């Protein structure tokens, strides 16, 4: 994170298994980015990554907190969950690999593109995970778009 003071801070709780509200946090973030006037292509990659992180909590974890810090040319996101953690991070980054249970996958979620998508969309991705305790996803996005 930069020393600069963020102009907007967003903090929202996410409940594991709550598919009804799944996506609400990333929708809110999208509206903020749109209203402030970030370039559409920048907003799109931030929102895709935020949505994947949010959905990971809904699909895999018990509960989590989504935090975003919005700077003029930079966005920092941290998603901290209490959940099963990721046993093999390297494997989890492979496209199509998923630990989501079959009934979730049948619903069309947990296809195994979450982490690789987050990596593709963000400029910096850090994952801190402890099996049986939880996962923390940290992402940074810098405005490169015109």
């Amino acid at each position, binding site marked *: 994170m930069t020393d600069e003071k963020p102009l907007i801070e967003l903090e929202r709780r996410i409940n594991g298994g709550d598919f009804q509200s799944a*996506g609400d946090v990333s929708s809110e973030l999208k509206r903020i980015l*749109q*209203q*402030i006037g970030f370039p559409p292509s920048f907003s799109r990659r931030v929102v895709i990554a935020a949505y994947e992180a949010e959905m990971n909590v809904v699909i895999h974890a018990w509960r989590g907190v989504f935090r975003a810090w919005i700077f003029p040319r930079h966005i920092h996101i941290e998603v901290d969950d209490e959940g099963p953690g990721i046993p093999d991070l390297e494997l989890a980054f492979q496209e199509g690999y998923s630990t989501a249970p079959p009934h979730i996958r049948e619903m069309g979620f947990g296809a195994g593109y979450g982490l690789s998508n987050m990596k593709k969309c963000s400029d910096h991705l850090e994952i801190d995970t402890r099996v049986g305790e939880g996962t923390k996803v940290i992402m940074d996005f810098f405005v490169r778009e015109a």
Partner: protein
Amino acid sequence: MDICHSVFLDEEKCKGCTHCIRRCPTEAIRVKGGKARIDEERCTDCGECIRTCPNHAKYAQTDPLEIIESFAYRIALPAPAFYAQFKFTIPLGKVLNGLLRLGFHEVFEVARGAEILAAEITRFLEQKGLTLPVISSACPAVVRLVEVKFPSLLDNLLPLDSPLGVAAKIARLRALQKGYRPEEVGVFFITPCPAKVTEARQSGGGLGRIDGAISMASVYTRLINELHLVEDVPDLQIAGFKGIGWARSGGEQESLGEGEYMAVDGIHNVISVFEKIEVGELKGVVYCEAQACVGGCVGGVLAVQNPFIAKVNVNHLMKKYSVFRPWSREEMEVWRKARIFNRERAYEAKEVLKLDRDFQKAMEKYQQIERLLERLPGLDCGACGSPTCRALAEDVVQGRAEEVDCPFLLRDNMLELAREIYALASKVPQTMSRKGREDIGGSHSGPCATP
């Protein structure tokens, strides 16, 4: 760019109720001074407000049929949905001949334009490196919705003209080939909806120029009384099931053949699907047909027939006219040379949702909105004239409304004021402080003060 619209308000009929403001998909309407006001920047001409208004105060401004009289050679472009207004037992050759009876010299079916366009879309989708899903550009309200509300999906929009645009260009091209001078040829669309009226008005002055958009309902009314006098001329009808199907939701993707296609209709449904596309869901979908009206074009606000009955008509017509008449390679070459698939107007982000051009100011405004929102009731009742509490907060911060437009905040402020008055009234000036003078805070059960 100049904004032209086709949805307008009849001030006399508007009672200032708030039905329309909640229904508008882009929050383009506010009630001000007891009347609805449409923000032209945000309006997509989708017609939801026309549908919702209990007082029929919103209307689509179309052209009267008489407009055709100022042209020597008049071509009618009937929308596929126009066919579905008539009972399916009536031959289309009769309906089209009926248009000639009304004063047109030629008919060119938009359904035919759709068939030709469908082939071009299929070709387009074979390209590599497309931003998927490709979103159909046939419904102008959907195109405008993307420009206003989903600027990050601009690259997904199909960069080809609509069936109407394609039909208009081919029709004019043919008339010019027949020897008519450009100023003699009038091309008129028989439209199911206001969004298409706007599209017609933005068609420019070139080959794709549309000289008028006449309401489907008005043409139907004129025609229905004369149809029994009209002969069936089967040769007038060229388009088959593929083009006719475009009248209703699903017809467009069906005309493209096999593929990973989807169809969504109803502007609020379209919004929820586009939100999914924005977050990267809908992987694997190649083409998304999206129409602002429930049921597709048969659900347009200028339709006469109930859209569900109209759909039955479409399905019957598709069976009845199960032909597909190909065009020649030479024809296609001429069309391509004339750039019939090119859009007149490039897609552009409208950026009306931005709070300020200046980034820093936009951030500050956002924070002001959040602070104000904490004090608003969050009921989205619409009594202030804005569709939601958030919209009111935005309007206040943008200087377009006042906090006390909210009846709850007004009441809170009045209560606060009453308390202040009460507190002040309790403070008795020293010279008045006399025994026997009633104190505002005192008991009312006691005897009145008498001098």
